[in-house]
């Protein structure tokens, strides 16, 4: 909100340099974002907190300054001369009638009337004030309504009484489809949720939001009816939001104006009007007030020791009392060591002791509170976090760049990967920012693959990325998303590895992660990698899935990315579940210093037989002293019959306590060869 220094000085005597004023305001809660010079005046751009509608007028801001400086506000003159009857001999209630149909939305409605108005141009002081806060001059009456709004934070609206049909005001709900033209020229179709000010034939104003063109005050208006009201905040906000229509008035009503202020603002208006031109203001005021709206708030007790505890500083009671009085709080008589106060009508935000303690803190200055050190405390180890950190270090150490992708996805690309992870409808976001990001992702890969495409298309030739983040699954019978932590990584390299070699490189990451996590020994035998059938989004034949028993815990495969040449390989693990099976403990285990014996075997097998068939045979054979089984190579082509392939692998044998003889090993290996020949129809290659 724009606040003029000279205007503030109408309310409070402040002689400080401009920057000091700005600083004092900032440090009491009215952040000054900018200062502009306006002729001989300065205008502050102040940030007003949403719970301080009383700061939406110069007098409210001036009150803060007055309190900070320990001085009083200048008094507000509300007097003006009145006449009992208009030139036709009618009193106020004969000249106008007011009916409020909907007290729920209109808590207070006051009307005063001035007749025989002599039109004059707005005086220079008024034009200057309005200009300083960014408003242009229209005519004296309208200018004064704007002035009072900016001065006291109270919206006013003036109607040309001669244009009000039936000289009556009815505050009612709009009719469905009722048309309304606002003073800014916009046309609207209203519905029964909107509150309007109407005369006997039509809506003449949208209550709390904007007046209508048909009854607006012009340079020739002679009789005015001034509305000063209190409308309930929520309906005003809803109407304003729905019709996309707002104003300085609606801004204030939405935040709750001062109920008492309605009458004060009205009188202030007429005080100023009478000073600037000739007019006759009819005595009296037509008014309706909703029962209970203007009751005074209950007293609040403020304990000094509680204040000291919260703020961390002991402030003498007389000082605290002066602060609260300066802000408009009334001190109730008390004889104990505590103070009891009632909040002024413009502070609906203050209902509890803690609210007053905040006021004291603000005015005292939060920056004045001394620093206090807390006691030393230790923090226990977080095993899960440590494991995640180790996994991330592994990915970083193997050349992957950590990425950050959005939790929302589209239902378009790579849906099959998401479906593989979690069958069932994804969770839907009602109002996404972008229409293609309307669901909560069930896999990190679609978003990460998008980044790969972006990188490759923009000329990055070697892309290795990883991310650890949450995905959102649906589980039957659970009414909120199941959040899982996944690890995903991608390799997309121009003229890089392809086929089996590329698979092995991507798969190697998964193997390393599992190795690092030290999955429980009893589960290791149920860790299996199996080919995934054709219906995943990955390229058929390229994909393997990790299972522990029947749980799906990982997937590795290749995808085709539009616009990207060559193969893109990726993998994803359910890291959260794997960590549940992991062991962080590192324990020494004695290792053998005996020399080992290595045997290379080269067998020819049918194409359909996979490595896992060979390795499970080796495992089932339970060979003595077998330390390691390592795949070496696979070959198809000349020297190998069609429909077959040649596989080379080596076995390493080592005993814990002695040197193994070649005889022993020979025998063991021979047994394996026979087994492979028997069960896999393997032929040993010479």
């Amino acid at each position, binding site marked *: 909100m724009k606040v003029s220094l000279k205007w503030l000085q109408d309310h409070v005597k402040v002689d400080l340099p401009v920057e000091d004023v700005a600083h004092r305001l900032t440090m009491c809660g009215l952040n000054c974002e900018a200062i502009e010079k306006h002729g001989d005046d300065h205008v502050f751009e102040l940030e007003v907190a949403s719970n301080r509608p009383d700061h939406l007028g110069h007098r409210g801001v001036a009150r803060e300054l007055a309190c900070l400086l320990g001085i009083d506000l200048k008094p507000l003159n509300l007097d003006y001369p009145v006449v009992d009857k208009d030139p036709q001999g009618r009193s106020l209630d004969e000249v106008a009638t007011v009916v409020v149909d909907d007290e729920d939305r209109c808590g207070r409605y006051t009307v005063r009337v001035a007749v025989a108005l002599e039109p004059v141009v707005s005086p220079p002081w008024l034009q200057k004030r309005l200009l300083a806060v960014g408003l242009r001059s229209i005519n004296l009456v309208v200018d004064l309504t704007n002035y009072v709004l900016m001065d006291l934070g109270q919206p006013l609206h003036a109607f040309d009484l001669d244009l009000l049909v039936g000289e009556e005001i009815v505050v009612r709900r709009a009719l469905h489809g009722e048309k309304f033209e606002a003073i800014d020229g916009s046309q609207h179709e209203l519905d029964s949720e909107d509150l309007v000010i109407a005369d006997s034939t039509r809506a003449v104003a949208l209550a709390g939001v904007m007046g209508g063109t048909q009854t607006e005050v012009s340079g020739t208006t002679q009789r005015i009816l001034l509305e000063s009201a209190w409308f309930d905040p929520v309906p005003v906000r809803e109407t304003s939001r729905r019709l996309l229509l707002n104003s300085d008035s609606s801004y204030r009503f939405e935040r709750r104006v001062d109920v008492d202020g309605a009458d004060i603002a009205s009188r202030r208006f007429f005080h100023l009007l009478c000073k600037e031109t000739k007019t006759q203001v009819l005595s009296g005021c037509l008014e309706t007030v909703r029962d209970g709206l203007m009751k005074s708030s209950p007293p609040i007790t403020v304990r000094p020791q509680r204040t000291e505890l919260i703020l961390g500083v002991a402030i003498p009671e007389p000082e605290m009392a002066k602060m609260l009085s300066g802000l408009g709080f009334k001190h109730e008589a008390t004889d104990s060591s505590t103070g009891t106060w009632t909040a002024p009508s413009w502070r609906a935000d203050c209902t509890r002791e803690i609210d007053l303690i905040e006021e004291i803190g603000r005015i005292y200055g939060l920056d004045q509170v001394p620093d206090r050190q807390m006691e030393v405390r230790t923090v226990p180890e977080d095993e899960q976090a440590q494991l995640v950190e180790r996994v991330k270090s592994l990915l970083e150490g*193997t050349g992957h760049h950590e990425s950050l992708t959005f939790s929302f996805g589209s239902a378009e690309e790579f849906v099959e990967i998401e479906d593989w992870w979690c069958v069932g409808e994804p969770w839907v976001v009602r109002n996404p920012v972008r229409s293609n990001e309307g669901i909560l992702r069930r896999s990190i890969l679609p978003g990460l693959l998008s980044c790969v495409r972006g990188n490759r298309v923009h000329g990055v030739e070697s892309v290795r990325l990883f991310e650890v983040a949450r995905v959102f699954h649906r589980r039957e019978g659970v009414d909120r998303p199941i959040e899982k932590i996944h690890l995903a990584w991608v390799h997309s390299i121009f003229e890089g590895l392809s086929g089996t070699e590329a698979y092995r490189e991507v798969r190697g990451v998964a193997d390393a992660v599992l190795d690092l996590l030290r999955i429980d020994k009893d589960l290791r035998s149920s860790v299996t990698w199996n080919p995934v059938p054709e219906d995943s989004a990955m390229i058929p034949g390229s994909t393997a899935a990790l299972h522990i028993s029947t749980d799906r815990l990982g997937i590795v495969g290749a995808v085709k990315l539009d616009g990207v040449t060559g193969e893109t390989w990726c993998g994803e693990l359910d890291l959260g579940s794997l960590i549940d099976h992991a062991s962080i403990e590192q324990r020494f285990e004695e290792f053998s210093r005996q020399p080992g014996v290595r045997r290379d075997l080269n067998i020819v097998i049918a194409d359909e037989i996979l490595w896992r068939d060979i390795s499970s045979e080796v495992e089932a054979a339970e060979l003595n002293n077998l330390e390691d089984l390592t795949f070496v190579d696979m070959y198809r082509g000349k020297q190998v019959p069609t429909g077959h392939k040649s596989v080379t692998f080596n076995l390493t044998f080592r005993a814990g306590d002695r040197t193994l003889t070649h005889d022993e090993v020979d025998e063991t290996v021979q047994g394996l060869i026979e087994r492979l020949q028997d069960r896999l129809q393997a032929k040993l290659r010479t």
Partner: protein
Amino acid sequence: MNQGSSKDLDTLELEALRAIQSAVDASALEEVRVGVLGKKGSLKGVLRNLGSLPADQRPAFGARANVVKEKVEAALTEAKERLGVVSTASQSEKASVSGADVTLPGRRVPRGSRHPVQQVSARMIKIFGNLGFQVADGPEVEDEWHNFTGLNISVDHIARDPSENFYLQDDLLMRSQTSTVQVRVMEGTPPPLRIIAPGKVFRPDTVDATHSYMFHQLEGLVIEEGITFGHLKSTLLTFFQQLLQDDGMKLRLRPSFFPFTEPSAEVDLYWRGKWMEMGGCGMVDPNVLESVGVDPEKWTGFAFGLGIERVAMATFNIPDIRYFSENDVRFLQQFS
């Protein structure tokens, strides 16, 4: 001869290795080499018996012989080193080694990187860890109680508006602040408490250079006996001093309003020549304590929420928040 073949290999190996061990100079080693590996050496002799083996035993035998050969060769090399011998064979090795262009750059070692947002988050966690704050966590999808009601945000507060949040359905939404974790922690653990909770938050926002609809906050909460605003100030000051390591830095707590703290303040930081808003803080509102069953007369505390992207952008001099989610390798690798 059949069963003896592998025994022959065993014997040959043992004898060769023993001879190598006891050799005293280069010529002795050379003698062993020729005697075992040479054209008329013992290994060749044993191999000649290959033909008399049954066919199915030949491959295994051949493989064994190979292993023996390698072992002997290795032992010879090691012995030469031990004796300080430069042999003709290693001379040719040397030639190839000394023929390398030693001004060539090394082969690229793959170095990955951590995302700058995660790096900042990790540093913040570490610093707060030193101050005794434990890391807590909460779901990214929250319900109305944890995101609003428990935080003293009234039913018609604008913060609940559908235009300000990503609702999934009536009662579920993406959390709009990490303060939700405050409520969860307090519901689950009685005080005293000292926790931080870094995490993603979501708010519909037009995406531009400084705004994104998904970003990261670090929440902090302390509930102990006798905690005052002075403790809050001190904690934040110590944190920023540790984070920035810059004497020229200034911290300012400026009164503001949040429904879940009272008094509330904005956290302003003056660093590298300008003031920046880093987040909000305040004393935990008694309504919040009561809603989670903590007695505000016995326990007081403070809470704060800091924007992680903001710190990252300031620390690393990144001009546009969109770099973080674009994940271009040329950006990411700058932080390796």
